[in-house]
């Protein structure tokens, strides 16, 4: 069955949808965790969340391996679709236009590969910056009587740099466009849609994409303009 899945165009769509939805699940959980950054507690909740994740041990590595598999699968299938497209229409049209009406062809749907590549380049950079803690300060902080890695300080420091903060904002807008087509498209690819539910899922996809993009991009902007000063942050927290 698995070879048939990979060999047929439909099987590849189904796999792209499943891996895409798994990544959507990750994005939701990631955002939920990140929103603790907005709490005015000097990063206690965020550091506790980061510490909880880190203390999962082998389970965390299983989750990371799973994510990597979904991510790589999704990327490879996307490249496959693009190659199919090039092969299936070697002679391009001189003029192309959308007919409108029931068409769901948008900048989002046409740019899935471009927005996908941006995300593909962003993810390793993001991991390098915050998971591997490179180019950001290394420090520990006390949370619930335990010394843990101060990820909050790393985030606050990174986003005091306007270039980094605005670059993150740009990438999150692009993620929003990717999700705008990707979310409803996954359900269509899984063969779950009918004229009754397509408009609802399509609208839900637009709302979901906007929520995710805004949810994520608020964080660097908040840190840049309203966040605590990293120089005095820890003095304040450990003060009287």
């Amino acid at each position, binding site marked *: *069955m698995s070879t*048939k*899945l990979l*060999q*047929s*165009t*439909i*099987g*590849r*769509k*189904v796999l792209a949808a499943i891996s895409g939805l798994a990544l959507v699940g990750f994005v939701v959980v990631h955002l939920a965790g990140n929103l603790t950054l907005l709490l005015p507690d000097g990063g206690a909740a965020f550091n506790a969340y980061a510490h909880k994740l880190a203390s999962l041990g082998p389970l965390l590595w299983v989750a990371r391996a799973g994510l990597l598999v979904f991510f790589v699968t999704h990327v490879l299938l996307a490249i*496959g*679709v693009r190659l*199919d*497209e090039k*092969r*299936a*229409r*070697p*002679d*391009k*049209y*001189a*003029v*192309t*236009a*959308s*007919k*409108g*009406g*029931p*068409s*769901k*062809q948008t900048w989002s*749907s*046409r740019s*899935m590969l471009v927005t996908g590549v941006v995300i593909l380049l962003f993810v390793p950079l993001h991991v390098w910056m915050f998971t591997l803690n490179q180019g950001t300060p290394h420090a520990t902080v006390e949370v619930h009587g335990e010394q843990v890695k101060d990820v909050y300080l790393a985030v606050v420091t990174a986003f005091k740099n306007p270039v980094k903060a605005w670059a993150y904002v740009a990438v999150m807008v692009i993620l929003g466009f990717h999700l705008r*087509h990707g979310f*409803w*498209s996954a359900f*269509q*690819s*899984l*063969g*779950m*849609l*009918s*004229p009754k539910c*397509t408009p609802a899922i399509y609208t839900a996809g637009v709302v979901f994409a906007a929520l995710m993009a805004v949810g994520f991009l608020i964080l660097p902007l908040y840190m840049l303009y309203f966040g605590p000063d990293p120089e005095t942050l820890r003095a304040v927290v450990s003060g009287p």
Partner: protein
Amino acid sequence: MKFNLKIWRQEGPELPGAFRDYTVDNIIPEMSFLEMLDALNEELIRKGEEPVAFDSDCREGICGTCGLVIDGMAHGPKLACTTCEVRMRVFEDGCTITVEPFRAKAFPVIKDLVVDRSAFDRIIGKGGYVSENTGSAPDGNAIPVPKDIAEKAMDSAACIGCGACVAACPNASASLFVSAKISQFALLPQGHAERKSRAQKMVGQMDAEGFGNCSNHAECEAACPKGISIENIARMRAEYMRSLR
């Protein structure tokens, strides 16, 4: 009315083609797009030039023979309309209209605007039918079919196989055509006996013909002269996954 035309001319398969400019005058707004091309061809024949080759048959929107890409849109700018049903009044007087053949590797150009769509016939040959013993016609009500299901099957069966879905798809995918042909049987009890092999073989042939994969742009539904819904594509995927079990 007067129009400037940019028409794709190609003497034969594998030969290089190019756009050529023409001007047509004294076009009546009620003329169809194909009648306008007829007028151009009469003019070309009078001048001793090679007329523009294009496909057409019924000229009333039911046979699926005609099909041109007009200003980047398969069957022109109107929704749910074949090329033969497009009237010249929808274009602005004096405008320039670009006319191209359906472009896909699986639809090679035969001449000018005529393409070879026999890839569709080969897909149908793989399972776009119900195997039946011949004999007297069965009683009409022998197999009860709910009204709404019958309507859905009829909507799928409305496909005239013109290939506009492939032409309009940014990926040159034949998903809408194949899914409509799979759906019209998958929805009805008569089609259930062979549903697994049908889904496998027709999808397999679609892939073998070199059509692209679907990206869910739904441009096919907009281009379809019969307004066939991408619901059929969702159903085809479900049918295909079911056939693997």
